[in-house]
């Protein structure tokens, strides 16, 4: 094992103690800003994040960093823990629900739905829209996506299906993905209005038979604050930062190579200095 030997690291001595104290104080201030607790209200409040649109196919593709930018949290549908991922882009809100159940516990015609309130109100009568991904045959991964409007707890098929949904069961885990259009021009009042920069209440429902709402077994209401368009980090900033990082790594690589070369010629240099 070797020791830290950095003789002559610091040559500045006069103002050294002042600098040290200033740095310690600066550190304490910075850390104190990081320890601000985050509070939650009665229903879960989620800040949706901007990100690249995922492919709605029931598969989370890790190799392409799909859903990587989403807000990810664990919530409980009554007694059923689920993973809920939320993100949006300029056009759609994306939600993914993942639940792990023993193979025998997965129902043949299991479904997950998103009921959408027309505002941030969580009253049951304000949920006027529903998107449901219904397994037709879960063992064959056959599913259907439905877009309903709700009137007095009666689910009615929309004349135009908007958004998209998909599901897939793999081992014990079933993954449901939804995309819901944002700022959609809603002429026939079939869909709830979901907009950038606004909060909307969503009810995540889980059921075991294709009857709505009687088939619903578990649910949870969440409030999603959809990121406004102004919070998008412009693409050129991301690209610039990426290019900068690459330049820094190339510089580091070049300097590292040069330094290694200098070390190998160090012995000769020491001999020259000695003579």
């Amino acid at each position, binding site marked *: 094992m*070797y*020791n*830290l*030997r*950095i*003789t*002559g*690291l*610091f*040559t*500045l001595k006069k103002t*050294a103690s002042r600098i*040290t104290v200033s*740095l*310690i104080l*600066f*550190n304490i201030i*910075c*850390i104190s800003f*990081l320890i601000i607790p985050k509070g939650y209200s009665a229903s879960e409040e989620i800040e949706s994040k901007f990100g690249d649109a995922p492919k709605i196919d029931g598969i*989370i593709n*890790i190799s392409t*960093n799909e*859903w*990587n*930018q*989403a807000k*990810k*949290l*664990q919530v409980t549908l009554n007694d059923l823990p689920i*993973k809920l991922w939320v993100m949006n882009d300029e056009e759609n809100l994306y939600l993914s629900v993942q639940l792990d159940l023993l193979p025998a516990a997965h129902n043949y015609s299991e479904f997950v739905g998103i009921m959408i309130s027309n505002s941030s109100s969580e009253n049951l009568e304000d949920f006027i829209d529903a998107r449901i991904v219904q397994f037709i045959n879960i063992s064959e991964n056959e599913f259907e996506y439905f877009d309903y409007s709700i009137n007095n707890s009666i689910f009615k098929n929309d004349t135009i299906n908007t958004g998209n949904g998909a599901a897939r069961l793999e081992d014990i885990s079933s993954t449901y993905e939804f995309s819901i259009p944002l700022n959609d021009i809603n002429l026939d009042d079939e869909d709830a209005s979901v907009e950038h920069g606004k909060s909307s209440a969503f009810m995540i429902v889980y059921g075991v038979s294709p009857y709505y709402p009687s088939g619903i077994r578990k649910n949870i209401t969440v409030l999603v604050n959809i990121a406004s368009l102004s919070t998008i980090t412009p693409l050129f900033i991301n690209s610039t*930062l*990426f290019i*900068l*990082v*690459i330049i*820094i*790594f190339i*510089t*580091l*690589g070049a*300097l*590292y190579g040069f*330094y*290694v070369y*200098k*070390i190998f010629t*160090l*012995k000769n*240099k*020491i001999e020259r*200095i000695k003579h």
Partner: protein
Amino acid sequence: MPKIPKQTLKEVKYREKYKADEKFAYRSTIISVIFGGIFLTVSLILNTEFITLFLNQNIIWNIVDVSIKTVVILLFFLFMITSIGNYKELIGKPLNWKELLLLIFLSIGQTLLNPWVFISTFLGLILIIIYLFIVQEI
């Protein structure tokens, strides 16, 4: 016959100690630069997001992800500064502020894609510098 001054025992011991120190410092320089290179490679893979360790499952995995990236950069900095410090000692010059600032700048530069890694690395670097400063002064 010319007179050759006899080396005292003290001088011989001093020379031997000096040679041993020199050998030790050279070895330390090489070992540190190898470790520095390893951590630089790991940092390149993680901090350019060429490979994503965790798919941001939740806040805990986020913290683990940021911590790993930060620790890799800090270890790179620590090994490189050790190596450069020893190298400078071997050639009889002190490590100056310009070299130190360049290393800090290049370490911080690796974090630009993640603001949390940036903040934690920045704070970590300050702590390391304070630690090294105190160690040197004592």
